[in-house]
Structure formats: C-alpha cells, structure tokens
C-alpha cells in the first residue's frame, strides 16, 4: 500500500506492506538510519521519534496508521550544521557513551521539555523512563536535559506555549 507522510519537513511516499512498522519505513523506505532498532518490543526507546511533536516508539506503530503525519527523526533536529539545543547539551554534558540510545534519548528529552520546560531532576528521570541506556550513562543524560532547560529556557518556553495551543 502507498504510505505518505512528512519526515523532517519533506514529503515522503513509499509502497510498503501493511505490516510495515514505522521504524522500518523510516530506515528502509526513506533511508534514514539514525532511528535505531533496539529491543523491538517497545521497551528500550531506541526507536523513539516525534509524531506530530510527541515522542512515540516507532517499533510499535504501523506506518499505515500515521499516513499524513508529521514525523521528526534525529536527522531532522539540527539546522544545517547548527546543532539543536538538546544535541548541543548532550555534547557539552557528555550525555552519550556508545551512542546507540542517543537518538531516542534526545527525542524523548525534546518531547519532555516541550511538555514541561523547567522540570526537576526527578521529573527528568521519570520522563525518560521509557529509554534505556545500556552504558548506564543516565547521570550525564539527565544533566544534559537540565542544562538545556536552564540555558536555553526561552527556546523551550516558546516550544511549550506552541504545543499548548495545538494540544
């Protein structure tokens, strides 16, 4: 079946089987391999992408179910060579080790701050409960999220008020 959607601002279309999961649509049909497959059972969060601005696990959604939707993957965050504030914060705070969980972590954290631009440390830890880091590098990941929430407050505040209008 023909499945159309917007990925990182670009219209995409592919003829795929109905059983095609969103993560494989993105990786195989669109060719964006930044979205990782981890556990394959919606536990680890490595495949997290933004669906209409909200974090979801792309291994547990049929591509057919989100025809016409607006999907953002890790490739869609940076503006040219300028990193997104969340990516910048992960770099500055050493929020990644092997990097496998990083795309999902960055997108889950982006969704978290869009909901709650000034979270407490406990709220960050709870908000990222759907993402596993097998390097157990959680401390610096949490630090990165708190860092950007504080240093880029205006950016996150603007996103939060925007998401409030559309919600």
């Amino acid at each position: 079946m023909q499945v159309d959607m917007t990925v990182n601002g670009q219209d995409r279309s592919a003829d795929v089987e109905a059983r095609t999961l969103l993560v494989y649509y993105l990786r195989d049909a669109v060719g964006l391999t930044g979205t990782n497959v981890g556990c394959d059972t919606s536990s680890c969060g490595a495949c997290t992408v933004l669906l209409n601005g909200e974090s979801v696990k792309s291994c547990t959604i049929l591509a057919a179910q989100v025809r016409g939707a607006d999907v953002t993957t890790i490739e869609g965050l940076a503006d040219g060579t300028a990193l997104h504030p969340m990516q910048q914060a992960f770099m500055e705070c050493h929020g990644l080790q092997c990097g496998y969980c990083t795309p999902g972590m960055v997108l889950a954290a982006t969704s978290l701050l869009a909901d709650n631009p000034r979270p407490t440390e406990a709220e960050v830890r709870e908000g990222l409960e759907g993402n596993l880091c097998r390097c157990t590098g959680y401390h610096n990941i949490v630090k990165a999220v708190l860092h950007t929430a504080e240093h880029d407050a205006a950016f996150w505040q603007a996103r939060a008020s925007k998401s409030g209008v559309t919600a």
Partner: protein
Amino acid sequence: MIPASFDYVEAASAEAAIAALTEHGDEAKLMAGGHSLIPLMRFRLATPAVVVDISRLSGLSYVRDGGDHLAIGALTRHCDVETSDMVRSQAGLLAHVAGQVGDPQVRHRGTIGGSLAHGDPASDLPAALLALGGSVVARGPGGERVIPAAELFTGFLETALAPDELLTEVRVPKVPDARWSFQKFNRRAQDWAIVGVAACGNGAGTGVALINMGQTPMVAAAVQSALASGASAADAAARAAEGTEPPDDLNGDAEYRTHLAQVLVGRALAEMA
C-alpha cells in the same frame, strides 16, 4: 519479529468498524493505539487476517460530563486522561493510573479503550475501572449496551465484548471527594506491576481491585466485604489474596504475590485513612 501479513482496513467511522467486524468475524482485530496488539502480533501470538484500524476516529476521543459520571471516549489516549482537568478533579484515581501506564511514549499512543478491551490482568487501567465501579459502552450491529466493569473481564485476555462489538466509551462515577490509592510494585520503572492495587473510597463503600493476581483483572472481594462489615484495615488487608489465583513467573511465585497483595492492600488502605 515482524507481524504476519494481514489485510489492512481503515475504518472511517465507528459504524464502518462494526461493519468490518461483522464481515470478517473473529478473523479481524480492531487496532487503536496498537500498544497491546502490535507486540502480540510481533511475537506471532496474534495473527489476525484483517486489522481494522480505528486509531483515527477522532470522534471517540473526548472527556465529557455525563451528570453523575464522566464519559471518556474509548480512543482517548492515556496522556489525555492523565492531564484532563475533569478526570483529575472528578476521578483522581483514574487520572493518576493513566499516568502510570508504561512510559511517556506509550502514553502518547495507547488508549483507554484499547487497554480495557485487551483485558490484561497485569495492566493498570482495568483495576482502576474496577475500583471505581465504572462501566464501558459496547456498540454492535444491534445497538449499544453498557457492560459493568465487574462483568467485563471473563478470562485471560478475554472480555465480554462480542467479536462484532466496538468499545466506544468508558464511564466512571464522579467521586470528587473520594480518598484513593494506587500501589504498583515492580522492579524497574516501566515494567508491568508484579502485583498492584487500585483502591477508591466513596460514600457507598470502598472499591479495591488487584493487578496480576489471576487470569483476569479482579476485585478484591474479600477485602471489600470485610471493610463493608466494619473490619479494621489490617484485618481487611489480610484477606487480600482470598479467591485469587496468582501466577508463578520469573518475577515471583504465587506465595510471594500473595504476600505482596496483603502488603499493598494494607498500604493502600493506610494511605486512604
């Protein structure tokens, strides 16, 4: 870990979904957020020939004031139940429990109707509905009927919904002043409860329901009747496992679950006191 092939039907309306179910019988499965069904399909534990996608029926996503109860559309997502001011103020237990399901990503896709129709004894929301004494509305080719929560869960992953019925609405009584408690015991943040307890008091009594203590989500009937006849919280909690059949698995054996149920009911009643 790819689902078996199926024919995909997108339902344009509730009526179209029911018509598709009528046409394909038990070969067909409804898919809302898919967060219960897709994992089953990936493990090939479910291999429906036809998937009827109802996820875009936006008319079934709402929270309304139904007079003495709240009416929640079956396709209302967990995150929307969790953050609804009306659910928070009128049925605080339900809003809280919706916020404990899975993780934020799961709550952005999973729906209240999907979770209830799946009927998993390890899920959180069925226990909340039982403790609140709620009900669901099922619509089929012959019209609508209301199924009380106490009659909804009939066996392991089985419900009283007929193969051609669509769960359209969830109803919970408005209990703005009720004391309530939710106890979810697990080892890791996003795991299912090894054992869980949902409890909610109101003028009529105290509803207490158990998670993962048998083949179905269930009411802790012995606890409820003990409380109704004036037993102390400690004496009522001691009866938490009566009439249950707790499973043995990697997370704990039946004896451990029996102990957990007693402890967690005790904690719930203490929190509500």
